[in-house]
């Protein structure tokens, strides 16, 4: 569209017919069709939450948490207290790399990460959707929560408009088909290329490392080819371009895209990393360097500003959960079929400690407990292992897990 964006059309123009049911809502209403699929989303708030404001002060009562008391879906969430990742004693900000992997000592020079939880789940749950998984971050930094089975970072997408385009933008199908076909032929010639290099005594480890990657690319092309048959879902562009609170807008938009992706069943596995350790950001009620403020050392002014930023994050989370819960699907809501995990690699980022990680599990159809306090420090990976089991992945252990503690009921 030429003169103004599609969004403005929708804002000012006549309402377009928006048949925006989840695909599975329709499916479920037909007898004999299987129940809505399960989805997961993991959100890492890398600078954590100020503990006294986050955790309920009265055990079991979410209304005693300054941040969570006004959450719309309190009855569909559980706050876990006393979870941690072992081996993070001197990890500092590097601990973020291990948020979804649990790999110890990420600060070490010879550290290699391990596969992240979402990637294991994507293998199980990702095959049936256009995007086996999606990974988002605030800005172009090349790594987020998701790590592949070789411990290599999966670069997250960060540009909201490009993400929207990828998910919902109209495509020239014949050009895309041609493109995929071309790339498949190129991949074939590159296999022959590798044979030649090998024959000439080229570095075997190099070829092997390349082969692994190109095999994955080939599988990806095949997947894309399959999905050419299905039209992308049509959704209105509801992204905000407000620049007054640019950071807040970005967080909102990433949650919005996550919602749209889940709602349209474009993917079933999402990670979202929320991170900003650079200059000052602007949120309603405060301007300041998030990272500087996170080192509040207990000072009232810093804590006040920091809590404004954290409240803003919680506000977006709240909205996200509430909206998922308003989308009917099968017997319940989209939220009931989506396990939302929000947490952090830091328990107390002011002191760079990684104990008592703030962790919420919401939705997913569990019988939520509001607030579960573990008696002694417990590996977060126990909960991760349990999530794998809940999604039919039969693994004996994950990261530092000892056992599935049965923390999530139902």
């Amino acid at each position, binding site marked *: *569209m*030429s*003169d103004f964006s599609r969004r*403005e*059309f929708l804002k*000012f*123009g*006549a309402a377009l017919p928006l048949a925006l049911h989840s695909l599975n809502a329709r499916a479920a209403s037909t007898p004999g069709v299987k129940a809505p699929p399960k989805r997961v989303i993991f959100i890492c708030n890398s600078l954590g939450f100020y503990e006294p404001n986050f955790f309920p002060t009265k055990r079991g009562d979410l209304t005693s948490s300054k941040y969570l008391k006004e959450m719309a879906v309190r009855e569909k969430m559980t706050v876990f207290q006393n979870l941690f990742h072992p081996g993070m*004693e*001197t*990890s*500092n900000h*590097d601990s973020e*790399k291990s948020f979804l992997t649990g790999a110890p000592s990420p*600060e070490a020079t010879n550290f290699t990460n391990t596969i992240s939880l979402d990637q294991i789940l994507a293998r199980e749950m990702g095959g049936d959707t256009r995007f086996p998984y999606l990974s988002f971050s605030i*800005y*172009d*930094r*090349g*790594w987020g929560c998701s790590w*592949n089975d*070789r411990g*290599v*970072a999966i*670069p997250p997408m960060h540009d909201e408009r490009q993400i929207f385009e990828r998910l919902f933008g109209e495509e020239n199908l014949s050009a895309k088909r041609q493109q995929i076909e*071309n790339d498949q032929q*190129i991949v074939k*010639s*590159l296999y*022959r*290329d*590798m044979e*030649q*290099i090998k024959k*000439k005594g080229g*570095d075997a480890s*190099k*070829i092997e*490392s*390349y082969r692994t*990657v190109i095999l994955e*690319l080939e599988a*990806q092309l095949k997947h894309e080819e399959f999905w050419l048959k299905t039209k992308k879902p049509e959704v209105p562009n509801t992204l905000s371009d*407000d*620049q*007054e609170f640019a950071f807040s807008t970005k967080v909102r938009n990433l949650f919005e895209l996550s919602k749209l992706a889940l709602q349209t069943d474009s993917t079933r596995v999402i990670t979202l990393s929320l991170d900003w350790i*650079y*200059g*000052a950001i602007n949120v309603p009620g405060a301007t300041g*360097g998030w990272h*500087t403020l996170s*080192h*509040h*050392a207990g*000072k009232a002014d*810093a804590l006040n500003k920091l809590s404004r930023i954290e409240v803003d994050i919680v506000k977006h989370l709240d909205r996200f959960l509430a909206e998922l819960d308003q989308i009917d699907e099968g017997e319940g809501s989209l939220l009931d079929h989506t396990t939302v995990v929000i947490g952090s690699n830091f328990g107390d980022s*002011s*002191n*760079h400690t*990684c104990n008592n990680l703030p962790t919420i599990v919401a939705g997913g159809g569990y019988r939520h407990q509001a607030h579960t306090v573990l008696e002694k420090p417990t590996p977060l990976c126990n909960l991760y292992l349990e999530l794998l089991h809940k999604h039919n992945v039969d693994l004996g252990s994950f990261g530092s897990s000892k056992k599935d503690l049965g923390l999530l009921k139902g």
Partner: protein
Amino acid sequence: MKQIGLIVVSITCLVGSAVLAASFDEKAVEVLEHYCFDCHDDASQKGNLNMEKLLREDSFDGALMFENLLTGKMPPAKKEQPEAEEKRAVLDWLAKQQRDHHQKSFRRLSRHEFVHSVNDLLGTNLDLAGKIPEDRGTNDFDSNRKIQLSREMLGSYFSVADEMLDQAFPEDGFPVEKSWVVNRVRDSHEMYRSFHRPYQDGTLFSWTRSNNGISYSFFYDGFEPPVAGWYELTFDAAKVADFEDDMSLQVHAGRYYYADDRPQPQRLLGVISLGNREVESRTIRAYLHPGESVSVHCYSRHNFRERNPKRGIYIKQLKVRGPLVDSWPPSSYQQVFDGLPIEAPSREDGEVLGFQTKLQEIGGSVSVSSFQTGMEKEKMQDGSNLTFWHTRFSPTVAKPPHYVIFENPNGAGIEGLSFATWQGGNGNGLVKAFEVYFSDDGKNWGEKVMVGDLDVSFANVQPIVFPKKTTRRFIKFLITDAVSLDGKSIASIGKLDVVTSLRAPAESSAIEVASRSPKDLKGVIRRFAGRAFSSTLSEEELEPYYQLGLLRLDDGGDFVQATKVGLKAILCSPRFLMAPGEHANPSFARAADLARVLWLSVPDEELLSVAAAGEFHGESLRSQVVRMLDDQRSARMIRSFSDQWLNLRGLNKVTPSLKLYPLYDDLLNHFLPIETRRYLQHLVQEDLPARNLIDSDFTFLNQRLARHYGVEGVVGQKMRKVTFPAGSPRGGLMTMASVLKVTTDGFDTSPILRGAWISKNIVGTPLSPPPESVPALEPEHGEAKTLKEQIDQHKSNKTCYACHKSIDPYGFALESFDASGEWRARYKIKQAHRSTFTYRPQGFFKIGAVVDASGEIGEDRFENIFGLKKVLLSNQQKIAYNFAKKFFEYARGEKPNLEQRLHLWDFLGKAEENVRLKNIVTEVLIITLNESKR
């Protein structure tokens, strides 16, 4: 010590005497016992270091001990010092003792190297690194060997390779070059006359900083790039003011926004410095994308908002030409298909285009129910909402119905109308409600298609979307209600146009390579592979690249398009993406390494011919390094290295507070890193000594930077070498505003962060992360305790102090510079403002305490930045050594091992000229090139 056996053997080879070797090892341990165990034995373990225990272990990381001993940090100055020979024995032993680290012997191309290399191979000039994900992670350098290729990265190389090949050899030919001449600013509010107003034949722009402090851009109407490409933007402009300084015209591109809206982020394309009062033509070249508009922002420190401004920049007109190609036929063809007959019909020039409405683009026309003289229908079709169409009111008032009819003779698909009220009058006649009708003959209108309301207070364009796209011949916009201040039925419209997504098909000129011969195709691919891989491949090895292209050619495909497939396979091959490639001889490997490090690219003809002659040694290598550093492609290395070494990639992620630093602006921000790059490039090219990294009496400045630094007499925004006045605290890297800014969060300065920056990047003290559960300290400027007192809490805790005594003091010296990099004698304390923040040049702060910039490093006390520079300059070898290590890591993708460090240290101490930067760079390259031969 199981290692001893091995050490003895290797040392035997070195010194040739088994007896000596054995005592050698013993001697090292003896020296350590004598000089170090006082503090670092089982009992004392000062600074958590127990050497006694370490030495009992099979292997240990001796890097920290090595560095401290080498650079003279240990033993501390007040303790007994080892003899040179004793020190040497320990260093040698530690170097030998270091276990071979099993790094991969190859690394992948970084995204920047990929894009530069492909540009050089294809003769294109595309900035596409942003389309490939950031690939450095948390490593210090892109080149780090730990970084592995991922599927997502390879996928983006596939698609970026396509994009670059398509730009070089477009399947549909090269779009015709067109010209546009425009002089009108797109929709704007009457109140923005304080920012720009009609003036002579064009527009006078004055300072355009908005109320919220962001720089407004005003967009030119009538030009939008039809295709992505390079365009030449020529402004006929003059300074309208009587002060000495130049005025700056910032030229931006980005998504159009109405000045009422929150500004959308814009890209700065270039800065035009205007000092001449006569109109002159000034040109910048820029790569533009469809959907972007060109906007301007006028900057000068002398004029702030004034009603009907008298001073500013007068722009008579903007002339745009493009998309440009570098030559005809484009050099991509000449470079890749060299030697083959290239058929390039002369490239056609497009007509000069002025402003065109969408209606004009689809060949439509407009008629109205009536008009007032001077307010004709053309006035709502001229791209401006400051001029307007008005129904007749004199001598008689036209009777309703009032309407506008569009004719669409070619049946273009029309999606709706775009409407804007007119700005600047009393509001009489503004349309409040309308109906829309369609017709095939302009007579029978049938039922109305839609009704709607319009917002009369809204100055932006208001889209009117038809329920369904229409191709009918006539569209009537009937006004059913309008503002009437005098009780008469009248109507007026600022802008009304159709909305259509139809674009005129782009005309293009096709180029063909007149060949269908498989032999020619092989030749092209062979030569391209030779340059891309810096080696000569056998026919068998080339076969995978040939095969696809040959098939296409056989199928009757176009020669160029068939070749492209082979080129893409080359660009995505492990030979290209994972360095080093497979080289026929070590000289080619060296050529490839040199080109990658110094140009982020592939070797040029000369490097390849030196490699082919196998002459990459001694003097020929040195002279190649000198040549490559003088070549302008080395600016890529300077940029890449300095951005990473000095952390400048984070520069734009920090925005200084406009309450504290109200004079900070985009223009200054743009030039900050340019100063640093120009300065470093100068140091390297002119082979100046490493002490210039710490201090010097010159730098590179322009008018904007000079003002920031308080340097007088620099007029115009061209960067030039400037000598600092005597007594200036500037000079060297640490006091550059780029560095001073990036080490803060844009509000307060933290001596800890800045101290850590100097420690790591300039002095080279290895830092360990703080231990867990030690409360972090983030000092505040507003507190009762002085900043120094707060930070000196580190002293009260031994664990903290062990490290912080060699971090914080550096930061103290930089306290004389605020978060924008400006000099300060006293702190500023932010003040609250009433209700919404409204930008004002004097900011919102009061003056606080006096800055105390004193500190002590070991035994050396300093009072301020001058003193700190003196302390650091007292050991130039150490500064040079750190620079060498950083450049090594940049070049090689791993830190030098201890043996290499010892070599570098010795080299730097050997002769005075060895601490000169070009010598250091060359020496590092010689070591790393030897390394890649392994």
